[in-house]
Each structure stands twice: as C-alpha cells, then as structure tokens.
C-alpha cells in the first residue's frame, strides 16, 4: 500500500509556556521548541505498522520552510521510507483551504492508496483532512482509532462521544484523520535521527505542484484571524447551598428566571 502521511511542525504543547503575542493575533513565538504535531506522529506510526503488515511505502509530507524539514526527518528516522517537502514563499499565510489545496497538488503527483492526517493540529481547526478528501473527491473518515484490512476496502474504527466506538468500512483510496491512542508510537532516539541526517528529501515548490502563485497564500485566504485573546475572567461560578430538595428548588427558580424553562 502506498501511504502519504501529512505532518505539521508545531510548538510542542508541553514544553512551552504559551502566552498571547504582542500583535494580539498569535501566540508569542520566541523561545519556543517545536515538534511534530502529536496526532500526526500517531498517523505515521500507524502507516509504518500497516506497511509492515501488508508491504508498501510510507511517504511523509510537510508544508513549510526549511525548519519543517527537521520534523520530516524525525518521522523518517521513525521508519517512514520517503520524505517530501512543499516549500514556497507563495504558501505563506495559507488558511486551512490553502493548505489542503497544496496537499492536494502533492497527492496528485503520486499514486497513493491511502492518505493519513492527524485529527487536528495546534490551531484545533481539524479541517485539513476533510478538505483534502473533498478536493480529491475521495471518501473520508475522521477520528479514526483503528485500521484493519489491505487492498480495496478498509475496516476502520472511529471514536465517538462518551467513549462509544463506531465500526465502518471505507473504500480505498481514501483520506483518514487519525486520533491519538490508535497505537503506541515507537521512540525515536538521537541515533535514529543521525542515521537519516543526510538522506535526500525532495522539495517541491508552487510551480512544480502546478499552483498559481497567488492561489493559496495569505492573500487568497478565505478565513482571516482577527484577534487572539484570553477572555476576561468573569465573576466565577455561583455556588448553591442547601439540601438536595432546596438545591433542586433553587435550580428550578433560576432556570425559570433565565428562560431555560417554558
């Protein structure tokens, strides 16, 4: 199976102290350490395990600048056979749709049976996987926590609310967004990273992908971030006291007052 896994280089969630930046539209990015997006890491592990089972290749692709390459290399150290970088100034400031468009162009250049993305990244938008599937006109499933099967049709599990699990069948080729916990990603040590330090990673720019210069960057973005702030703290929760009967009675009064009961 030919698998493409889309990965993103994001600020490491636990090793940084995140604060709102001076411009008010982004977090402060000085003194940040970056890592591969955690969901994407699970996706790469899953792809490697699938290929170990049924044969094939795993290609890891990332959008970004030369710094994003470190993340692709780390996933190759983990066991992905190929890397691919999509780099162009024209990509700067792309919104979710722009990212999905760029990835679509990259996907069409290969002959992939399966594309995996992480369920979400640092923005929490959780949209690129779905948009990519729509642009490719491929079937899509999100929050996948189990993948079985080989060619033709996959059996997948999806995690739903309240811990319930859904089992479905999906035809290949398809796009799946991967939920954390689908597997236990293997450790990548310094030695592994050094082993792939000089492996060639091809780079494609807008022209190589057949994308017009202004088609996907910040200028073409259909969603623009206006503000980024921590909401002002309110008065806090109102605590009710009394016996269960009294609490219930107070609650009913409050709900009537606030229009919650008709």
């Amino acid at each position, binding site marked *: 199976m030919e698998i493409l896994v889309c990965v993103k280089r994001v600020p490491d969630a*636990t*090793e940084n102290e995140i604060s709102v930046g001076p411009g008010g539209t982004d977090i402060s990015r000085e*003194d940040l350490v970056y890592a591969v997006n955690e969901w994407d890491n699970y996706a790469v592990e899953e792809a490697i395990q699938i290929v170990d089972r049924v044969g094939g290749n795993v290609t890891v692709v990332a959008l970004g600048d030369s710094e994003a390459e470190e993340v692709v290399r780390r996933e190759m150290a983990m066991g992905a056979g190929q890397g691919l970088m999509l780099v162009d100034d024209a990509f700067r400031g792309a919104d979710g749709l722009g990212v999905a468009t760029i990835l679509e162009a990259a996907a069409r250049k290969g002959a992939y049976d399966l594309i995996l993305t992480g369920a979400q990244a640092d923005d929490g938008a959780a949209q690129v996987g779905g948009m990519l599937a729509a642009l490719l006109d491929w079937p899509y499933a999100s929050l996948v926590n189990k993948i079985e099967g080989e060619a033709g049709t996959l059996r997948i599990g999806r995690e739903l609310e309240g811990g319930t699990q859904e089992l479905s069948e999906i035809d290949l080729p398809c796009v799946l967004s991967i939920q954390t916990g689908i597997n236990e990603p293997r450790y990548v040590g310094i030695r592994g990273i050094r082993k792939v330090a000089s492996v060639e990673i091809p780079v494609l720019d807008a022209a190589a992908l057949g994308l017009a210069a202004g088609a996907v960057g910040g200028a073409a973005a259909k969603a623009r971030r206006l503000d980024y702030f921590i909401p002002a703290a309110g008065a806090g929760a109102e605590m009710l006291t009394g016996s269960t009967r009294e609490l219930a009675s107070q609650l009913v009064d409050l709900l009537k007052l606030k229009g919650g009961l008709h």
Partner: protein
Amino acid sequence: MPFAFLSPASAVYLGVPARLVFLLIPLAGAAVFIHMMIRRVRPLLAAAPDPRFGDVPARLWLVLKLWLAQWRQPRYFVAGALHILLFFAFLVLGLRSTQLVFLGFMETFTLPGFGGELGACYNVAKDYAATVCLLSVVLLAWRRGVVKPERYKVPAALGKDHTGEALLVLGLIGTLLVSESLFEACGLAAAPGEGAWAGTLAWAFRHLLAGCPGGFLGHLGVAAYAVHDLTFFYFLCLLPRGKHFHVITSLFNVFFMRLEPGHVKPVRHDVRDADLDKLETFGVKKLEDFTWKHLLDFYSCADCGRCSDQCPANRVKRPLSPRFITIKGRGHLFERYPLAGPQATGPAPLVGGIYSEDEIWSCTTCGACEEECPIGIEYIDKIVDLRRGLVEEGRVPPSLQKPLSSIEKRGNPWGKLEKKRADWIAGVGDGLKVKTADAGDAAPDLYFVDSMTSYDDRMQKIAQATARILGRAGVDFLILGKAEKDSGHEVRRYGEEMLFQSLRDENTQAILDCAPSRIVASDPHAYNALKHDYELGVPVTHVSELIQAGLRSGKLRPKPVADPTRVYTYHDPCYLGRHNGLYEAPREAIDAIPGLKRVEMAGACRDRSLCCGGGGLNLFYEPEEAQRMGVLRVAQAAQAGANVIVTACPFCLTNMEDAIKVAGLEGRMEAVDLCELVDGHLQA
C-alpha cells in the same frame, strides 16, 4: 589381623589388572572434560570484546579477598559459613584427589613437595577437612531439602525447582568424602600401630572396620578407590553442565570482575565515541552481543539467590529477578551452544524471547545485586546494554518517551524553560548572591545543581540550603545557570546513549569554559555522572564531604538539635553509598549536631541500603509492582524506631515523602535532606 595393603594399582580382578581400568577412567574423564571445556569456551570467543586484562595487582587483590577469603559469603551468615567450610575443604582435598588419581595406576605417589613434613601435616589437615566437609554437606543438604530458604525458590513459570540438582551434587561430594576416608581407613588397617586422627571420618571407619578380615579390607579399599575415581570424574564432567561450573569459573570471574562501581560500559569497548555512528547496531539484542565477561557471568552463577533477595525491584514484585536474568541467560547459552551437536543458527532476540521488556525496564540500577554477588557477577551493564538495543528499535515505554523528549528539547525532564533553571537563587537569602556563569561571574568551585534540584519546588530548598552552607563554609562558587543541562545520568542508564553523549558534551563545554578547579554536587546522580561518566579532569566532590570538612575545620559550627525528642535515621542513597563508597561523611555531619539522636536501620544500611525507588527517569517510569520501594524503606525506618529520615539525594527525598503519604504515616514520619538539616542547625 594385619594384612598387606592392596594397592588399587596392583589389584587384579577377573584377570584384568585394575590399573588399566584406573588409567582408563581418568583418561576418558579428562577427554570428555576437555571436550566440554572447549565447547564452553567457544561462545566466549564469538562474543563482544571486553578489556579486562590490565590492573593485575588490583585484580589479584580481589581474587585474594573475594575468592580465597570468601569475603562476601558471611553476609548470609549460616549459608556463608557452611560454604566457607566447604570451599576450604575443597581446596585442601583437591590435592588429595589429585594424588588419588595417580594411585590408581602407580603403587605409590606423592605430589611434588609433599614428601616429608609438609606431607605429614597435610595428611592431618585433609582428614579433618574431609570430616568438616561432610558435616557441612549434611547441613547444606538439610537447608536445601528441608529448610528451603525463600531465595532458592523457582517461580513455576520459570521452570523446575533446582533442589534436585543441588542435592545430587551434595550427594556426589558426600560420596567423594566417604569413599576417600574409607580408602584411607582401609590403608591404615594395613599398618598396625598407625591410627587415624581422632574424630575424623577415617578414624570412624577405622574403628568400624576393626574386626574385619584382611582380605575383605583389601578389596573394600579397592572398591572405595573405584567409587572415588568414578565419582570424581563424573563430578568433574558434571561441573560444566550447571550451577557448579562456578567451582571452576569463579576464580576467573572474580579476577575479571569490575574494579570500580558507578561506571557504565561504553557501547562497545573497541569503538570510540566518534565512530559510534558507523555501528550497524547498538546494544545487546542477541546473545553474542554480550561481552565475553557477561557470558562468563552466566556460566559462573551459583544460583544462590542473594542478588534477587536484595533486589528492591524483586522485593516489590516487579517482573525483575537478577538471578533469573543470569539463569535464563545461561539456559539460552547452553541451548544455542550445546555440548554435543551443532550450534544453533537462526535469530534469537533476547528481549521478547527469554526476557520481557518490563523485566528490563524495572531495574533502578541501585547496585544491590552486584554488591551482594560472591562471585562478581555484573548486572547493570547487561541491563543498560539490553536497553540500548530496545531504544534503538524504538521500544521505549510511553511513560519514558515524554521526559526523554523534554530532556532533548529543554535540557530537563519536565520540559520547563531553560531560562528558569536558576530561578531558585532568588530564595537563598543569607545576604548571599549566587554567582552564575550566565552573568559572566567566575569562581574556583562550580556547583552543578542538575535538573531535579533546580526545577522542583520542593527540591529547590536543597539547592538553597546547599548554597547557604557553601557560603558559610567559605567556598567561593558559581553555578552554570541557563547553560546547565541535565547531567544525563539516567538517560545513559536507560539506554539513550547518544542523547546522553550530547548532554555530556554540552555540559562539559560549559563547565570547562568556567575553568573550575573543583566541582561540587548535592545530587548523587549528578555527582556520579560527573565523576564516572564524564571525563572532566576536574575533581568532583559531594556536598556532604564539604560539610564534613567544614565541621572539622570549625568553619561550620552546629547548634543543638531543635527537637531532641525526635529520632533520626540516615538513608544511604544508592549513588552516594554503594556506587561511591560515601557512607561516613553524611553520618558525621548528622552526628555533629549536639543532642541529635540517630539510629541505624540494622541490616539495611550502608551497602545494604534499600533503594528508594530510583532517581532521574525512574520517577517517570510506571512499573507493575505490588507496592513502592519507598514504602518498604519508610517501614524499615519506622521499625528502627525513627521518626525522621535524613537523606542526601533529591530523588530519595521525593520518594520518601511520597511513600510517607502512601503509607499513611504523615505526622508520624518526616523526611529531610542532609543540607536542610545542617543548614537549619548552624550557629549564626
């Protein structure tokens, strides 16, 4: 009635001269034995190199102390005393046994030099040795067969009980003793007026046989000789097949044992750090990846169970038992390299085969096993090597992946910001402004704080107390500050060698840039790393030694203990005590406080100290265990009558404090750091 002694060499039975038989038996026995020894040596030649041929005087000293003087045996007193008797009897009787072999085909034979006085003394010695030996054999058999001490037990999953083998060997030894004494007694019967030495086995037989006819005695003597000859060579050929191989290999195992604790072997002894990237594979994944000394360890295990008895992981029922690391290793070695038939080919990964991943991750590297083993078997290097193999394959427990990644990114296992590493200096007080390398300060002493003491809210108090003590003792010191990274002590021992080397190289550069003439550490793990894992060329000292020096010089003047009713006990941290021999300085520091009552945890202090649960990455690992090591330790402290545990390690302190809560002893037991204790009891 007197009879002419019938020498086995001159006896004839059924027309066959016995001397032919008694020549054949040794020749056949020796041939089989030599074949077995060649087979046993072969895997050692296929194993990884291990340079253990230097420092011969130090090695000979260890042989004299551990092997000849059986120095570690009395640590388990009854078994130890019995074994010492058995061992010395073996040494003494070995000469007699050699002589006996020749007496089978030579009428008379004495070993060179044993003709006159020496020979006469020897004859006395050997008869008493044989008697004492038989007594020990009986007692040892009783211990194995009836008493059945806990540490000899074999869990069902790990195979058959070993009692049968033990009793067989004791039976063979007993047979050798009895047959030799009987032979001796028969010989004495032919020389009237010559009695056996009173109280010996030979003497007992001599009397038992007093009335027997001469002919009978002659044949009995030959029969006894034959039994001895056959048993001797059967026993000799049994040795390489099981735990009694140690009879032969223990001398070599002790000669080649590690000279200094606290070190970890390099990835491969014949590969320099700069060439490590060229290695195909890291660590131990299959049997031949072990060094020849580690395979020799497998051969030499006497299955005494002392290592596992002292192993804290074993005590809390983690899946690790050092004894079975060796026994299973030996079984695998015997299987892959059999005495007859072809060597096994085909892959045989160790972890996932004879060992489980959890088994290998359970070790805290406390060193209790290596401290206890009377034969010098090593465990820590094997565990580290097995971990290196697992790390290379990415098989690291999830609970450890996060802190390793944090150490890689931020230089500490919690992922906290580098610039906050020296924040603790704000709380030192005492009018002391701590110098830092970031600020461009300089000082002859460098206090290497390490991650735990720098970042943990509770442990920052240790750093602050240490700084105040150093100040009072007149030590002009600085800290690295932001440039300090985790020492990497556990990173290395958990098998992430390349991350350790990167930390080591960065720290070394930062340290040498300050050009200190001495390094001080309060964290025993940092102390051990800087002393043994780094090559700084600068002396490293622990703060307890500085306190000791300050007390002796009068620079540090202690005041009476705040609460004279409390009872203190000192818990020896593994990396201060066992790995570095620093037992007395902390005790001296505590005892210098007037009116302080201190007790020892009898039988569980100094080199028998029970590991608190482990430091560094051990704090993050989530093992399967019946209870925490710290809880056992706190119970020991309570049993010793203490209500304050003093320790000199931030990891011990955190494990003790957690254990006190888990054990429900809050309010009745307290844990305190040595520096906090001393700092709180210094005169103004």
